[in-house]
């Protein structure tokens, strides 16, 4: 007898994602991912000035404001075929990278680690043994016996009052929780330390972006930061030196804590290196441009078919027709008027047509994007695999080092193939984060070196033609490929479509009824206790779902915060 389990919503953050799974014989047989809010931000943009679009699109999402600002200005610049100053690229790159590092640290420690770490078990830990273990793996100063003792006492105080606060909703004591108490204690200590460390990344974004959480400094044509060697009121060398200090502290944490925690936790869950494989067709795009025209990049991207790295086809520039021509969206299983087959985003339509949740029909507000007709997985795993395939040395070094540590802890050889999995997505995110924090430091160097040459330009004025022009803004955002597609007519927006990472991953079935990435990755996931579907959450959370930008507009009145229906 199969059981139907509905999890609604799945995210601990912004947005509303519903996942339905059919469980039979202790594992998921079939899954449906459904965006529960209507998307329609695109319609707000029609008729507006393209120079204002970035400020509006960064309001789409509460988690990744900056990424939409970046993709939007890139789309308009692409339509105008304009070049932007090098300083503007470096400043944007630093914002992109600092945001990504922030996002990954917070995602792992604060939004998903508690799927693997049993907070209450940490109370049984011996702080001395925890310190011995942690100190054997890393030089991080926050791994002392005294530190772990303090954390354990603080946690005991919390549990003693019966107020678990933010830890209330965890599946404590679930049979799928397998870490020893000492590892749980180490993870809880690092959870708290990560709260301190994440602020460095946030400060970088706010100094460069002039404001946080919504940056104010980007503009079509560059950035609005005035650079100066000596003036007090603008982005000075002194402020940039403060930024460098924060970069160094982030780097220390990412390499000596985050990467190691992911490897150790992964080593204790070896079975999760084969669960959650699903779609192994991957797409990522190059990012961190090193010239003004988006033709050379620090971090490569591209397309990998069937999980085979030798199939890697590099996407070389943001004008690469291979990306631009490959994307289409189907609404066959989405609550929109359709009948025209998959449409390219320039021709995309967004006209709602709600039905009930129909297993074989329409069941989601998300459209279903494909790349040359195939559903894709996007995000840190596709990104890291593409960089490995492109022989990006720093990525190869961090990936190898991480897999070696996983192998040591698991006491068995764990290779690159283990990355095509639920725990592999976490590992890839950490490897990618280490690469990003190094690149952040390099972009800082490039900015300073360019300023030292006397170049302080940050803005080229855009000129809009009378004719119709179209452009795509491509960005490898923390959750994967983000693209904004704009059609401009006589200086006004005629069509605007955002194809966001979570739409790729949480897509419903496509025109050919093939499942999206979440749906495919959930098939085969074990479920020990249907009304406590921790294993399902692990796989979904490994994608770092963020539905707020995938879909829009809402009526949540009288909805429960978390509802698990086991029927």
């Amino acid at each position, binding site marked *: 007898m199969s059981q139907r389990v509905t999890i609604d919503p799945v995210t601990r953050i912004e947005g509303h994602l519903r996942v339905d799974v059919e469980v039979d014989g202790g594992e998921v047989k079939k899954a449906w991912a459904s965006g529960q809010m209507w998307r329609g931000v695109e319609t*707000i943009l029609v008729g507006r000035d393209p120079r204002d679009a970035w400020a*509006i699109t960064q*309001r789409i999402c509460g988690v990744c404001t900056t990424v939409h600002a970046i993709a939007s200005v890139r789309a308009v610049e692409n339509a105008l075929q304009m070049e932007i100053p090098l300083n503007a690229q470096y400043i944007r790159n630093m914002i992109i990278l600092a945001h990504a590092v922030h996002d990954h640290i917070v995602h792992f420690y604060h939004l998903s680690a508690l799927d693997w770490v049993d907070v209450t078990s940490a109370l049984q830990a011996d702080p001395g043994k925890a310190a011995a273990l942690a100190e054997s793996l890393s030089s991080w100063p926050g791994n002392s016996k005294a530190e772990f003792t303090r954390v354990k006492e603080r946690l005991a105080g919390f549990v003693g009052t019966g107020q678990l606060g933010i830890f209330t909703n965890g599946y404590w004591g679930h049979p799928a929780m397998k870490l020893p108490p000492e590892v749980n204690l180490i993870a809880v200590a690092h959870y708290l330390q990560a709260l301190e460390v994440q602020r460095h990344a946030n400060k970088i974004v706010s100094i460069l972006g002039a404001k946080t959480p919504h940056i104010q400094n980007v503009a079509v044509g560059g950035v609005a930061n005035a650079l100066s060697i000596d003036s007090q009121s603008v982005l000075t060398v002194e402020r940039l030196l403060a930024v460098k200090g924060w970069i160094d502290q982030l780097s220390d944490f990412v390499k000596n804590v985050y990467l190691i925690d992911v490897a150790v936790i992964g080593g204790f869950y070896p079975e999760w290196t084969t669960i959650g494989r699903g779609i192994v067709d991957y797409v990522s795009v190059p990012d961190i441009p090193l010239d003004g025209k988006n033709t050379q990049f620090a971090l490569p991207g591209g397309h990998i078919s069937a999980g085979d790295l030798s199939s890697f086809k590099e996407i070389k520039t943001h004008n690469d027709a291979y990306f631009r021509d490959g994307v289409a969206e189907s609404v066959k299983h989405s609550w929109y008027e359709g009948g025209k087959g998959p449409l390219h985003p320039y021709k995309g339509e967004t006209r709602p047509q709600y039905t009930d949740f129909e297993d074989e029909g329409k069941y989601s507000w998300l459209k279903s994007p494909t790349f040359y007709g195939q559903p894709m997985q996007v995000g840190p795993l596709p990104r890291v695999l593409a960089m490995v395939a492109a022989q990006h040395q720093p990525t190869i070094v961090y990936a190898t080092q991480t897999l070696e540590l996983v192998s040591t802890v698991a006491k068995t050889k764990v290779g690159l193939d283990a990355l095509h999995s639920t725990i592999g997505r976490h590992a890839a995110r950490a490897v990618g984060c280490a690469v990003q924090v190094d690149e952040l430091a390099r972009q800082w160097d490039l900015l300073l070196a360019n300023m030292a040459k006397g170049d302080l330009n940050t803005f080229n004025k855009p000129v809009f033609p009378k004719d119709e022009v179209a452009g795509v803004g491509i960005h490898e955002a923390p959750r994967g490929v983000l693209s904004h597609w704009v059609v401009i007519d006589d200086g006004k927006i005629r069509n605007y479509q955002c194809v966001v990472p979570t739409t790729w991953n949480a897509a419903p079935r496509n025109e050919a009824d093939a499942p999206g990435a979440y749906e495919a990755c959930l098939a085969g996931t074990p479920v020990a206790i249907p009304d406590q579907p921790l294993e399902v959450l692990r796989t979904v959370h490994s994608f770092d779902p963020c539905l707020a930008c995938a879909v829009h507009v809402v009526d949540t009145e009288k909805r429960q915060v978390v509802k698990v229906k086991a029927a």
Partner: protein
Amino acid sequence: MRVVVLGAGNILLSDEGLGVHAIERLPLAYLLPGAVEIIDGGTCGMEMLDALEDLDALFMIDAIRGGQPPGTPIRLVGDAVPVFFKTKLSPHQIGLCDVLATLELLGKAPKYTAILGVQPRSLALGMELSPEVEKAIPTVLRMLVDELAMLGMRARQLTVKTSEIPRW
């Protein structure tokens, strides 16, 4: 004394964005003491952690669904504050709720929190406030000034013509 006035909400969803609209008008309507920081929080979550830690008072301005006629000003304090977050009357609060819970965990939660807002009429897609909510904004700002006065902080009313107030 550290006080934050936080405008929360999504300006793409008409009345959902009233908190952001209200805090944009606040500095044009009143001259506030230096200790009061105005933050446009939008729909953000964890990025707000630093800005909201160790506050003497947090005043959040937001759309509040309290079963009242549209445009009714609403003030929530004391026990009503955690209930407001728990029942998630609007979509961005999953994020803010996590931020406040994390501040509790760190022992850095605001000493005093009040939520000031208006019963929304429309949460449809759009960047304009409904007329009822638009009319209630000056009342909400007045409520905020009264809150500040209770903390001994005086705000001075400025005279600005409505036509000079910038809008999205």
